[in-house]
């Protein structure tokens, strides 16, 4: 059972208090009428399924009822960070790759 830090409550609580809402940062198209059927289908139905870093939308449903985002590893289930809606993640696939490269002495 995951242990999740709610950025609104400022506390780490058990997964039982939360609900996952899938991939984060899915933005509703500004002008839906201009979307093709395919684009609209992509927006509603198609989601990434990465092995590794995943940014997810969660809600503290049994707590403050606020939504927030979490950066979670889909293999290890490690949660690197949680952050409020509107904020950008600090851990990304790219940042992890860069950190790994720098640890191995490779410079860009």
């Amino acid at each position, binding site marked *: 059972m995951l242990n999740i830090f709610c950025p609104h409550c400022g506390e780490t609580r058990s997964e039982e208090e939360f609900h996952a809402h899938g991939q984060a940062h899915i*933005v509703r198209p500004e002008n*839906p009428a201009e979307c093709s059927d395919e684009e609209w289908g992509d927006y509603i139905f198609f989601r990434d399924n990465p092995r590794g870093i995943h940014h997810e939308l969660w*809600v503290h449903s049994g707590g403050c009822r606020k939504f927030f985002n979490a950066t979670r590893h889909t293999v290890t289930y490690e949660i690197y960070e949680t952050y409020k*809606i509107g904020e950008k993640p600090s851990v990304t696939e790219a940042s992890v790759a860069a950190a790994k490269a720098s640890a191995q002495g490779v410079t860009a």
Partner: protein
Amino acid sequence: MSQVNRLTNGGRIDRSQPLNFSFNGQSYQGFAGDSLAAALLANGVDIVGRSFKYSRPRGIVAAGSEEPNAILQIGSTEEAQIPNVRATQQALYSGLVATSTNGWPSVNTDMMGILGKVGGKMMPPGFYYKTFMYPQNLWLTYEKYIRKAAGLGRAPTEVDPDSYDYLNQHCDVLVVGAGPAGLAAALAAGRSGARVILADEQEEFGGSLLDTRELLDGKPAAEWAAEALAELQGMPEVTLLLRATVNGYHDHNFLTIHQRMTDHIGEVAPMGMVRQRMHRVRAKRVVLATGAHERPLVYANNDVPGNMLAGAVSTYVRRYAVLPGRKLVLSTNNDYAYRVVLDWLDAGQQVVAVADARTNPRGTWVEQARARGVRILTGSAVVEARGSKRVDAARICAIDVAKHKVTSSGEVLDCDLIVSSGGYSPVVHLASHLGGRPTWQADLLAFVPGEGLQKRVCAGAVKGVFALGDTLADGFEAGVMAAAEVGFDAAVGTLPSVEQLNEEATVALFQVPHDKSTARAPKQFVDFQNDVTAAGIELATREGFESVEHVKRYTALGFGTDQGKLGNINGLAIAARSLGISIEQMGTTMFRPNYTPVTFGAVAGRHCGALFEPKRYTAMHAWHVANGAEFEDVGQWKRPWYFPKNGEDLHAAVARECLAVRNAVGILDASTLGKIDIQGPDAREFLNRVYTNAWTKLDVGKARYGLMCKEDGMVFDDGVTACLADNHFLMTTTTGGAARVLDWLELYHQTEWPDLKVYFTSVTDHWATMTLSGPNSRKLLAEVTDIDLDKDAFPFMAWKEGEVGGVPARVFRISFTGELSYEVNVQADYAMGVWQKIIEAGKKHGLTPYGTETMHVLRAEKGFIIVGQDTDGSVTPDDLNMSWCVGRNKPFSWIGLRGMNRQDCVREQRKQLVGLKPVNPQQILPEGAQLVFDPKQAIPMTMVGHVTSSYMSAALGYSFAMAMVKGGLQRIGERVFAPLVDGSVIEAEIVSSVFYDPKGERQNV
């Protein structure tokens, strides 16, 4: 029966406390401190069960959780039955009743055994797959008999009288296992002041310290363990959990511990006590000190009772003062096993010989045995056990380990007990539960925990540190490290002194060679519980199963309730040799929770019976109960379904209630409808975006019906929303959808439109709602309210504030029945009084309480949908013929608009909501029935829709239904047919879905 195998002295048992018990109907006696297995061995019980596939007699092999054979059924009464209890882990109590889980007619004379002997050759791995596969529909028949023959224990058929519970715990350091490493780790962490939980699955703390012959500080190791325990008991931050198996290591250092609180006292917990408890622990750090299991050697007939693990026999002798035989032969590849020889000699018994696979063992214990005159045959192994129901001899041959060959004809030695040791397998289960694969360490001949993502430290034998002194040191270090990592200042302190032993390396021997090929030699068992043999594993590899997971599934290796604790490593080694690859390349199968079986009681905890799920009651519930309501579950709510009078059945009551509403007045408790209070300057704009219809022009004091869609254009909720003030609205939702809708509103507000100033509050429980419906409702309401009910002053789809029954109320003039109707909302804590006043005043108006079934019929007569009954997430407002409720010209592209304009949503021949009128007016179409246009078509018929709602209408005098039919709105007047399961067909006419008062005149009076 006397305890023929009990020593007169020694052991950790209490001879002053004899305990009577029974096994397979026979009475026996043991002592307090015995495990059931120890007591059975003390009484000379050789056979405890029959094997799974070949029905061979089996005896006790081990002394701990790894026991594969002594899996018993416990309980003297039906309600107390527990299946699959390991006798080695069950403390003996007075009156314990145990039986074998398999063996017919009895374990001693087993009919199936003959089948096993005859059928042995005929039952290779994959036998069940190959034999019982066809015809497929007979599998259920086969399965019943296979299960009966296999003996998997049985669940009780009566309700468990005991209670179980959960306890949530938090700690700095959880130490798993209280052997030398675990006790040391707990001491180190505990001394630093950290909050420590120490859990051990046994009846006593101490693990191997309880029966080892080694000394600590010159004293028996058990004394050191007792001192350590006393110190831990004195630490206020340390919790000691006995009989507590840490069964699962879950994400983010969450561990589940199954503690048996009273199973050692009796089969039913004493009054007021919890029988078993599930500790749910969030630990900042975990020390895994789970130890290691001794691995048996695999040789011919190694399953005959009287074949045991070397270390287990030491445990029985030293801890339980039980001799599981008289004349012992040891077959080993390592030094540690020699302690059984010394213990056996100390107990005054005969050691016939030791077969050591190594060519020149010179370790301390080996020399001690040699010095005491034990015959040691080096470069040798027991290749075959002799005997049928009990070992009577062992055949020992010289072997070439590297070439896997027998190199001498050997000799047959009389004995009644063969003990073997093939080394130790660390208990890596918990370390691997989260996917960290164990790694093979060739020098140790063992898999040790691999890289862990969890915040854990391993200590002692689990990581291949086997020598007692090293184990203790490792435990202290692990405790220090774990405590330090969470901010506690810990120190190792002084270690007890241990005699250093000279230790000879172990040789890699798993399966002992036989002079015949594996396939032709007598059976060499690898997994006792599932009857998997070395020959079976070789066959699997020959048949092309190369992955360890495939070999496992094909042979059933490790599939028993013991999860292959004894046999898995041997099985991997045999498969690897057969494939010509290394054990490392072979790898292990996945380890999954639970480590040992957990009872359903412990899993359920208090969440059973009345506490299975929360129940929600309305403020008028007591009145409904007093007035004989039958209830229906809607979500968690208990809603009155109907109010039968004078023994009426559902149909009679609903017909009466329907007519009462149509002809006089009825009252419905509608409190369960979801109510969301919406406030803020942008509330109206928000409604425009989440509802399909327009809200811009809804005046204060008015209410409007709204449909809510998802982005795909499909209807997902509906309800009436009233404008309380220009920036204040009250939304109602379906009873079941209340939480979902609030979540939906919050999702869009918080993630998409945070700029809108609007706030949502659930007020479902704050307001109680009573619906008065029927032509007399105005007259009745007028008697209890000060609100002007004049039809022009208070028109349809308006709401008013005032007093009803003397308390503040909001009254909404809306209708879900098509009749003149008022929904009276009062604060929930006043509601019962108001309800009773209305009931009292309603007597002269023919007021009739009605339930959800009548509500469903009345709304269906009007063609009003119920979201979730008439819709299923694939239905647009157009499909429902509700285009009137879609504001296509609203400026903002509201949720659902783009979705319902997709090509698929605007095509011809979508299923549309229509009414159905059965040709025979007494026939009621079953809800869910599939519809066809041509009933004569051959199967599979072309299905064109289904019935969503169907009732008998008392007001109309005939049956009717609502249905989704392909292109239905263009087919009004045509016929459809519902072919039913019994072969009959109901014919119906497609009609408008509005059956009653199609012009809507009755609600507008």
